């Protein structure tokens, strides 16, 4: 294949994938790229392939030729949740005692994620101390999760589909082999962000329906935000041939603000449907905001050299992410009123409490050149602190502490390098007692307001909280990830 044709094909493929809007990344789990993934994410200091546009753009200056990479990340993402048993105060039995209700364990019904691409090109464009890169990819993560409409999780979430595509344009410069700097300009496109949950539309005072409500409503928000700007800065320094340090950071406090449409339907169909109006006119436009974290990566690696040839390396990375920017997922209806028969409920602002906190991850990994210039193997492990206090655990993202390990390898056949990585990532089991749960059922029509002590408006069994807590339970999650990647060098 002629080189220009290959390039054209790669770019076309990237555009096609970005438009396919299927199974792209979500809020992030791991890293993209077979090399980085196979090292358990310990790649900030090394960063010598197209994934450098994300992990450390300064590393592009290591690439002294032109490479085109196309790869895909396949994953199986098991997510389970079992809600705690509770007492159904709303449906007492004949002698007034509230039934003890248990909930079946629910699983993500869409665990397989087959399309999760990385397409990129990096080149020095003939300039000795420079490197340039362009890459299109979906950030590593689980794009789509679907749970039963009648499952125990439904007041937290029934579906999420977050298709995020990052377009990165990067440049790097180095001073000999001593140090280098680089920057990426990142355009984040969200062609689809869909989020659905069940809300209790009970319009009456003292509503308290922890298990089910006659007014359960499937509320779904679907929208897009095609342009969010971000930037990544990076640098590396190699004070001696055997030691190299890298640092990078995603530095802009960005936020995805989708213009979305809200749809609502009774879980149990009724004679009349719910209509949405604003100022007496039909309306369903809402905004959904998801803040993005800023990220700092710091890596140190040891290179064992045989002459100029790197025999093996070991890298340790620390990654700090400012997830504390995510206090809530906020759905602002901008004054929409839900109307059912003669009842009116102000949809208002639906806040899904997150209270996330900054996370720190430590990644250790390295490469071993088993057959010089032909075959390399790599491996890595990592641990990441939980993004959420257990009280705010939610089924929508894996927010507990995560562990993982990966292995991988590369084989060079002529100008083509074929790389593969296999990764196992798991969240430690998270159990949340209802007394500690802080994610509450959404009851837009409730007149129970802070401090939630007014017995004329608040349910007697839930005084002190806005409504029944709905995230108590046991969370388990793991992913099995395989990354396959081809790189053409010329």
């Amino acid at each position, binding site marked *: 294949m002629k080189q220009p044709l290959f390039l054209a094909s790669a770019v076309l493929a990237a555009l096609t994938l970005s438009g396919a809007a299927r199974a792209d990344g979500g809020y992030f789990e791991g890293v993209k790229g077979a090399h980085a993934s196979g090292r358990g994410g310990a790649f900030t200091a090394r960063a010598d392939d197209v994934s450098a546009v994300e992990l450390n753009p300064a590393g592009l200056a290591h690439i002294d030729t032109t490479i085109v990479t196309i790869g895909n990340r396949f994953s199986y993402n098991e997510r389970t949740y079992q809600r705690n048993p509770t007492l159904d105060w709303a449906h007492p039995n004949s002698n007034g*005692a509230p039934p*003890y209700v248990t909930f079946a364990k629910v699983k993500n019904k869409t665990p397989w994620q087959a399309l999760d691409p990385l397409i990129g090109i990096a080149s020095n464009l003939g300039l000795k101390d420079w490197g340039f890169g362009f890459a299109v990819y979906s950030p590593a993560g689980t794009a789509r999760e679907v749970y039963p409409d009648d499952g125990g999780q439904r007041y937290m979430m029934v579906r999420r589909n977050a298709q995020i595509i990052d377009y990165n344009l990067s440049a790097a410069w180095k001073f000999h082999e001593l140090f280098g700097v680089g920057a990426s300009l990142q355009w984040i496109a969200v062609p689809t962000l869909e989020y659905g949950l069940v809300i209790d539309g009970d319009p009456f005072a003292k509503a308290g329906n922890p298990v089910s409500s006659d007014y359960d409503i499937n509320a779904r928000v679907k929208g897009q935000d095609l342009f969010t700007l971000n930037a990544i800065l990076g640098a590396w320094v190699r004070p001696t041939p055997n030691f190299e340090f890298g640092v990078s950071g995603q530095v802009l406090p960005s936020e995805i603000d989708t213009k979305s449409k809200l749809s609502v339907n009774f879980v149990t169909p009724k004679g009349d449907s719910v209509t949405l109006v604003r100022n007496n006119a039909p309306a369903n436009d809402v905004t959904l905001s998801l803040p993005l974290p800023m990220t700092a990566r710091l890596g140190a690696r040891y290179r064992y050299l045989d002459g100029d040839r790197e025999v093996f390396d070991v890298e340790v990375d620390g990654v700090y992410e400012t997830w504390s920017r995510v206090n809530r997922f906020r759905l602002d209806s901008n004054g929409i009123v839900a109307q059912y028969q003669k009842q009116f409920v102000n949809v208002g602002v639906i806040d899904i409490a997150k209270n996330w906190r900054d996370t720190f991850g430590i990644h250790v990994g390295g490469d071993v050149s088993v057959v010089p210039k032909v075959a390399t193997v790599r491996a890595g492990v990592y641990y990441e602190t939980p993004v959420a206090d257990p009280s705010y655990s939610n089924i929508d993202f894996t927010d507990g502490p995560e562990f993982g390990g990966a292995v991988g390898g590369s084989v060079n056949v002529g100008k083509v390098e074929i790389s593969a990585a296999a990764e196992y990532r798991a969240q430690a*089991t998270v*159990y949340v*007692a209802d007394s500690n749960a802080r994610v509450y059922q959404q009851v837009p029509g409730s007149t129970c307001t802070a401090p939630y002590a007014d017995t004329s408006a608040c349910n007697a069994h839930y005084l002190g909280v806005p409504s029944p807590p709905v995230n*108590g339970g046991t969370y*388990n999650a793991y992913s099995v990830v395989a990354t396959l990647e081809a790189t053409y060098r010329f």
Partner: protein
Amino acid sequence: MKRAERAVALACTFLAFGCGDETKSFAPTDVQAGPNPVVATLTQVTWTTSAPSIGYVSYGLTQSLGTTTTLEAQDATTHEVNLYGLTPNTQYYYQVVTWDGADAGESSIQTLTTGAPPSDLPAFTKTGDTSENGMDEIVLLPVTVGASSVIVAVAPSGQVLWYHVADGGQTVTRVRFSKDGTSVLYGSIDPAGQNSEIIRVALDGKSQVTWKVPGLGPDFVELSNGNFAAIVADTQTSNGATLKGDKIVEITPNDQSTDIVSMWSCFDPAKFPGDGTNGEWTGADALTVNEGASTTDESDDVFYLGLRNLSTVVEVPRASGKCDWVLGAAAPTLAFDTAANAFVHQGGLVISGTSLLVLDADGAPGTSRGMQYALDLNAKTATETWTYTPSPAVHVTSLGAVSPLTGNRWLVNWSTAGKLELVNDMNQVLWSLTGPAGSTFGYHVRTDSIDAPENKP
């Protein structure tokens, strides 16, 4: 993958990072149950919780359970709940459920086996509808078969939920639930008169208290101040004859007795001798009270007393201590609308507002009947508003009562016939309960739940 998950969980525990609260301290512990040594249809389930909580017990003949007790009313850390209505000599499954204000806890499903019933526990035959359109309440009544008296709480299905065997040789004519809902009160009448008692027996079978009431009559009530008002014999001499009249007395928990009113002050046996025999004059057999708005101040109590031998009902305000209005054959101040509607030898009384319900033993030829009257104290009349005459006829020779249920239903207690009937305003029998052959029933009360019983007339 499960092995890997376990490894991760173990690592999480080891590293002590925020993997959540793994302890379920709200769950019930020390859950125990065993056969009640006194009541074979009853078992106590006990448990403890580390923090104050409320709870209930689910139980049944299979692990599906199916029946629950009522929810405990008060937070506590030690708990005891009674399971009533169990079948003797039977294995049950049960599970404790708790609520500490936020977390619902459960025990494992455990088993218990009930004890053996007494040989003289009566069995009942039920007919009819046990839905809310039929009989949907529990009846507490004394049943006498031969010399044995047993107090039973009977479900609409005819199942005995609870029982208490009275001392042999005593007659039990009245039972009530105590106002605190923990016990059953009954009058144990000594045929000789002097050893009669009011007895309080705990529903859980654990305690029994007696009050000596010499001359105790067939009926008594518990007052809100903790005392009892009871019919007691008041024997005096009139024109050289010794006659046994009746009085209402108030009895304190330490057996002190105070007269409220004597029928000797209301009627003159010379003018109204009645039709009693063997010196029995007034034959008071029914007592009820309206305690007014206050539940602590008894001064506004109004008593209603049925005088069987005089075929008369009287109202006696405590404040005056005198008979107020009188309906019946002796010195009436109220008149029946027609002579045919006059009761004769009436049994138990139920007065609600201006409505009076009686079991009329002999007012109709050849049969007893249930009667409801509307009292008009201004017009001084008693107008019949409902009557039920059974077919075939039933003749009650003592006691007997009629209770009003919601939805135009009445429960008729054919005492000496050993039968209860629930009838509607079309006089259709919706439900019936028949005791063993030869059994007689004393005065009953009704309740929706035996877990937290209340006295319905």
